[in-house]
């Protein structure tokens, strides 16, 4: 079950893009992601470097500043669209979950009532 690149985002990808709503450099992202997630998600430097490289190559982020080897990035329109699409997907997932669980609970309650009756 191959997953086309960036069609769905891993947590690391998601939070990296989210962190780049504001211009920042790689090190800032490494600090921002744990801060955004209460320490639940961390991004390793190896992963982050390669992610930034891939995001840059696919036009999801752009380079805004280069100071020596310190580079800053910002989310592009394409990146924002990908991020929003992912959020919409997650929302749909949540909605599906909510609907199905509500139906299931309703069915369970009805069965119990029938049994009691």
């Amino acid at each position, binding site marked *: 079950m191959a*997953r086309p690149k960036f069609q769905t985002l*891993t*947590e*690391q990808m998601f939070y990296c893009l989210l962190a780049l709503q504001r211009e920042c450099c790689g*090190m800032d992202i490494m600090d921002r992601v744990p801060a955004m997630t209460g320490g639940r998600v961390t991004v*390793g*430097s190896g992963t982050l470097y*390669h*992610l930034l490289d891939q995001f840059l190559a696919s036009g999801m982020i752009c380079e805004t500043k280069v100071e020596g*080897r310190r580079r800053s990035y910002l989310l592009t329109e394409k990146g924002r669209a990908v991020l929003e699409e992912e959020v919409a997907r997650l929302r749909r997932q949540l909605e599906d979950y909510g609907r199905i669980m509500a139906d299931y609970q309703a069915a369970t309650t009805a069965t119990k009532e029938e049994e009691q009756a």
Partner: protein
Amino acid sequence: MRKRKYRLAQFTFYDRTGIAADLTAEAARGWMLDKVSYFFWRFRRIEPRALHFAVSYFPKASVFDPEPGEEQRSFEEFCLQSGWQLVGSAAQMQIFCNERENPVPLETDALVELENIHKAAKRGFLLPYLLLMITGLLQMGLFLSSLFRDSLRVLGNSGYLFTGFSWAVLLCMTGTELLGYFRWRSRAKKAALEDGSFVPTKSTRRFQLACLWVVLVLLVLYFFSLEAYLRGFLLSSLALPTLVIASVIGTREVLKRWKVSTGINRAVTLGLCILLPVALSLFTTRAIFAMISDGRFQRPAAETYVYNGQTFSLYRDPLPLYVSDLLEIDDSRYSAQLTTTTSPLIATHTAVHRPRLGERNQSDLFYKPDLSYTVTEVRFAPLYGFCRRALLEQATDRVLHGRWGEYLPIEPTPEGVLAAYRLSDGVSVLNRWLLCYEDHFVELQADWALTAEQLEAAGQRLAGGM
């Protein structure tokens, strides 16, 4: 106490789990990775410490880079800021160490890591291993075709068996590595997509080292099993590929030291990979021919004699059967030459008893005839039936006077001989016999038709083999 140590760099390219675990264990024992070179990894003495190691891959790096490029340096700095310090690299493979107690792992996204490893593997691992495996397959094909075509010659020669075994080991090693990689990648991809987990790599280091040791030990045994005059030949045939490999790697490293660009270094090194083997093959072929004509690879002769202005060798090897054992002639001036090729499976002794050139002519042919015989000793008993069939079939493969040969059974057989045959070309019988003993065979060829008494005498003399 020594301050440095070297270890054979026998790690699989993608074995990030095995490498990290190995280096962590070395640091705990007081050894820190100091330098990664082509064949060996160098370690320096440190205070035993609990350090964290991780391997990452930088696909854009090349083995021909004179020094890390800007992007690679950015990557190193990036990692350094989170405590991961580069301690060694080999082309795309980058080894990092972290002194912090609980560092954030270098790689935290299994899918990203997997894609990155695959990109690096395509350049630094898969292509060379695939080429090696194809070479191994071709060589094994050639070996097997020789084995089927001329099985006794191949099975009875340690050199052929060693070469065939070495190619089989290479094929096994490269096949294991490639198969291992694709199996791991498939499992790792599944896990990464399912729950984002990392799948540890499986180290094949012990298997690889065991293979190398087996080949090395067999090579040493083969070397010492050879007669002294052939050892030089083996050494020179080993020296050729060693020289090519050393020259190619040496040139690449010198060009890197001279800061020659990646492209030029690659072009020069690949050019050398093609030209050097061709040039060295031409040179060594000429040298080997010169040495052969000098008699360097020949067993020293007992004496030499000149005939028609050319020098010929004459041997005085002890043989179990001489012409004079069968005929009333003086063979004291004959050459008696015994050549032996052995393997743990079969030993083949070829004896040639012939007069000097010029001392035999058509008129006295009967009085100074040639006699030659090959004794095939079956050292590995289960091969007896196979050898017998092979010897009988060899005759049918031989074209004699435009016809296929065939061994016809003869009676009575000499004492101690289980079965005896005489070669026929379909019209008449020839002066060639095959005698089958309990544990060996003799193919006998004479310039005259042996009588039943002479065959009996020959059969009895050759009953003990060589």
